[in-house]
């Protein structure tokens, strides 16, 4: 009898661990172990077959910083970020404000603005690739100028930024839209009764109340920009002359085309650090300056 009770108690104690075991297993096998392994390996010289050779300290990093393609890719990522992040936030905010009211006519717009989520990344990137062709592309026909989109470093980067905005549009739109709609209506109504103009209602009440979500979208945009790779692979393949080759793209090339694992591991470690810094800084700013509703 006693043994049976003990057995049941044990089972009861073990059960929650069993429920989370699959998630924990995956977290270790596919995130923590490869993460630790790649940071660790970045301090070694590595053979072509991926085996660690000998400890070399910061030698891989020194080589990386002396490498022109690395600094170029780094600068490209930064250029992309500068174009993409403001463009993304401004366009999405505008779309959200235009369709904020919950009424029948806006349902069509909601569905339309969600559409980019429904089409696959590489489908959209392929469509953009053809739309932005120089000379014979449809975009140039519409705007009436012959912009050398994919033949020129700046224009190529801009077209890739447009692609980035389009890819993120649906999700960011939904997040901000629902944040605005979930606001406490009575606060807004009270302000209106007190004679506040629409501009005042927006800047003094709505905007402060949705800052947490806005901040979240901004943070995601910056991280997406830092890590962008696959859409560029499909649209420009990093060209012309590597001008749209970003840092993660460069990591991919070193790891899987050149089998230069030493470079790949040190690039990934550096990007880990930058990503962690961005996360840390945004958490800090958020705690200081962002208004939360209670």
């Amino acid at each position, binding site marked *: 009898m006693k043994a049976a009770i003990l057995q049941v108690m044990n089972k009861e*104690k073990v059960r929650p661990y069993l429920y989370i075991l699959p*998630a924990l297993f995956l977290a270790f096998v596919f995130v923590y172990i*490869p993460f630790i392994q790649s940071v660790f390996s970045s301090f070694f010289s590595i053979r072509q077959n991926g085996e660690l050779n000998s400890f070399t300290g910061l030698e891989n990093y020194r080589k990386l910083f002396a490498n022109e393609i690395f600094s170029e890719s780094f600068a490209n990522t930064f250029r992309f970020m500068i174009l993409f992040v403001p463009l993304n936030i401004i366009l999405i905010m505008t779309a959200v404000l235009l369709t904020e009211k919950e009424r029948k006519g806006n349902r069509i717009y909601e*569905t339309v603005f*969600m559409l980019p989520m429904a089409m696959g990344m590489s*489908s959209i990137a392929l469509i953009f690739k053809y739309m932005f062709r120089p000379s014979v592309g449809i975009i140039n026909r519409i705007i009436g100028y012959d912009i050398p989109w994919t033949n020129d470093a700046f224009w190529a980067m801009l077209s890739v930024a447009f692609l980035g905005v389009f890819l993120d549009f649906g999700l960011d739109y939904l997040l901000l839209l629902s944040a605005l709609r979930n606001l406490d209506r009575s606060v807004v109504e009270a302000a209106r009764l007190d004679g506040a103009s629409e501009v005042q209602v927006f800047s003094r009440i709505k905007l402060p109340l949705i800052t947490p979500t806005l901040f979240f979208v901004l943070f995601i945009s910056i991280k997406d920009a830092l890590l962008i790779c*696959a859409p560029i*692979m499909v649209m420009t393949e990093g060209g012309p002359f590597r001008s749209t080759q970003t840092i993660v793209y460069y990591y991919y090339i070193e790891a899987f085309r050149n089998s230069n694992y030493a470079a790949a591991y040190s690039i990934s470690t550096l990007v880990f650090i930058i990503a962690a810094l961005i996360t840390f800084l945004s958490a800090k700013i958020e705690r200081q300056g962002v208004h939360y509703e209670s």
Partner: protein
Amino acid sequence: MKAEKAVLFILTLLFAIVIVFPFVYALSASFFSASDFASSPARFLPSSFSFRNYQKVLANRYFLPYIMNSVITGVMSTVIRMIIAVAAAYAFSYYRFRGRTFLFSLIVLTLFVPSDLLLTGNYLTIYRLGLIDTYLGIISTSLLPASQILMLRQYFCSIPSSIHDSAMMDGAGDGRYILSILVPVSKAVISTFALQGFIAMFNSYLWPLLVTNSPSMRTVQIGITMLGYAESLDYGPVFAAIILIFIPFLLLFIFMRKRIMEALRQGCMFI
């Protein structure tokens, strides 16, 4: 006031047109002949109307296998993810156990490690396990539903615990409670997560590209970039493929719009 309204209306319409344009252009281009693509100035509409491109892509011996692979991996990973997510979120919201907070943060922290930078290590793991060119290899890295666990836990905690208590008192086990109360109550949230998980798998690019070698194992998002028509400058079949893949998703989204909005209203971030 009227003029202001008209300006806002036109601006909204303009936004919608810009967003819809790539889709409409892709539809139109799916009827283009090879020479239509080379015409200057660029064409909006095809010179003649025929389903030649659709016939071509459907006759391509890899196109349907690509779709099958995507559907199979999408469904497999969605089902596994949802089971893992519900089980873990359930344990985190209804059980008190040692290391609960720590283990929870271990799972949430994975969200901050950019997975594209783990490709090398994960590739080696899958390679050593002999899972290259298998469905399990393709889905392996997207099976951890960290953000869903985070949000489902939050959601489960918002359900009054008295329901759980009385169900347990009546002798319902965990499985019974999850299936007959928790899942029905969280329908909007769980179905939104399932849709999102399916789309994430369906759209993933870098990983499936790495772990598949044979054309018959490729998923459709990689496949359409390799259909091989681009070399002959005949892009029509590629656009036909894009449209064929898009139609079911379009219907799914229109059908799911209400539920997605509902899930968002309940505070689910839908990452």
